[in-house]
């Protein structure tokens, strides 16, 4: 099993969600994060221009079986990309085990 973590634009979240559903990845968690990156967002407040490097993004975490890894990563890349700086990152790591709390099942069964 693999854990796939993706930091994506909030504006791309709906597209990513649809695309994941299309390849049968139906379960995942997400939360909103603030980070620092290369992108600067220009603002003007009461005549004073300022830029903020505090960037708002959405952090998506998906646990999939090994044979879903490439498909999921490719789907994320396709759906979350705009081509501009700030599209985000994907990290993949090993997951030792998973359990379903309701039944006590473990392994691939538990994540589907």
């Amino acid at each position, binding site marked *: 099993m693999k854990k796939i973590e993706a930091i994506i634009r909030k504006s791309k979240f709906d597209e990513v969600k649809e695309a994941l559903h299309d390849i049968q990845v139906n379960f995942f968690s997400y939360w909103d994060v603030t980070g620092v990156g290369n992108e600067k967002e220009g*603002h*003007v*407040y*009461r*005549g*004073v*221009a*300022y830029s903020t490097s505090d960037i708002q993004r959405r952090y998506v975490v998906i646990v999939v079986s090994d044979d879903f890894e490439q498909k999921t990563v490719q789907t994320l890349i396709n759906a979350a990309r705009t081509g501009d700086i700030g599209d985000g990152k994907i990290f993949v790591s090993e997951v030792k085990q998973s359990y379903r709390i309701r039944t006590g099942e473990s392994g691939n069964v538990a994540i589907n």
Partner: protein
Amino acid sequence: MTEDLFTTNNVWMMICTALVFFMHLGFSLLETGLTRQKNTINILFKNMFIICAGLMIYFVGGFSLMYPGEFNGILGFNGFGLPIGEDGVSIAYADGGYTYWTDFIFQGMFAATAATIVSGAVAERIRLDAFMLFSVIYVGLIYPIVGSWHWGGGFLSSMDSFLGLDFESDGFYDFAGSTLVHSVGGWAALVAVILLGARKGKFSKEGKSLAIPGHNIPIAVAGVFILWLGWFGFNGGSVLSADPALTSLVLVTTSLSAAAGGISAFISSTLWFKNYDVTMFMNGVLGGLVGITAGADLMSPLESIIIGMTSGIIVVIAVNLIDRWKLDDPVGAIAVHLFCGVWGTLVIGIFGSRAGIDQFLIQLIGILIIALFCSVSAFLILGVIKKTLGLRVSNKEEMEGLDLHEHGMDAYADFGLNDH
């Protein structure tokens, strides 16, 4: 004058009283929205304090100080409390315009406004106890003394004879308080901002102005709409009766000036800064309202639009100037209340039924006298507070927020949007 008309007049004045009361919510929301989340309780506490303490001080002596009856024109006092005379609730009291009680409560609602103006300008860094002490003295003494000079029948109302000048005009004119209320607050705000210094992070080490965006723009916009609504009472009630022609004209000039102020402020700030800034739009509306306040009963609709337009542009320029002078006014109170208050008072000599060079000069002299008196007294009061109590909170307190240190509370407990 019939009893029916007396009743009608008095009802109108009480409705206006309620509208002016509502303006205090408008100020509270505007100041809350344009400052940071970590200082919200502090702003709201100050605004609650101002209206409650203001009314009580006005009861104790403010009203008597401002309307002493017959006096020497500079300083008079009619006794503590509310010494209602025999005619207090009869037609004889104010030509059937209102009763003594209505007079007190309407004027009482006005009085606290001057301190509210200061509250926004000094937000996010002044000590709560210092602010409370200052506002009690300013509302209790300075505001009523200045008010007595004109509305109380003092020397500004008959300035030509007082100064021994041969002016054609009757005297200084300020219908609802561009100077008597708004500039009186504005001068104190200016002095307070100079003595306090800017918020940490408002100017870079190189002296460049930095933005500290307000945390709740919807709340601030709600405040502006409430203030506009309240202004129907502020200006409409200053007719001092329900006179159909005058009250309806005043509502028209007040609203047209507010609208024109908003439009001209957003256009000029958009051309200048290349963004549609709603906070400038808001300040423009308020600038238009303050600008028309001195002459709301004298202007034609077209003249009120011109006053609003110019006030809106003045607000945008003033906000920028104050920044360049390295002064920090988080909500634009000085730009709105001082700059537009002075302009609105001067414009009596330029437009409307009293226009003329003599009137212009009298307006100018009146403005200068009040400017001197208010800034010197604000300087003395705040200077003494600074030496004794201290004006400013500690650095740590300022960084972590006044809510945490002065109040030990969160404005949005359980609603964590932002950790400071």
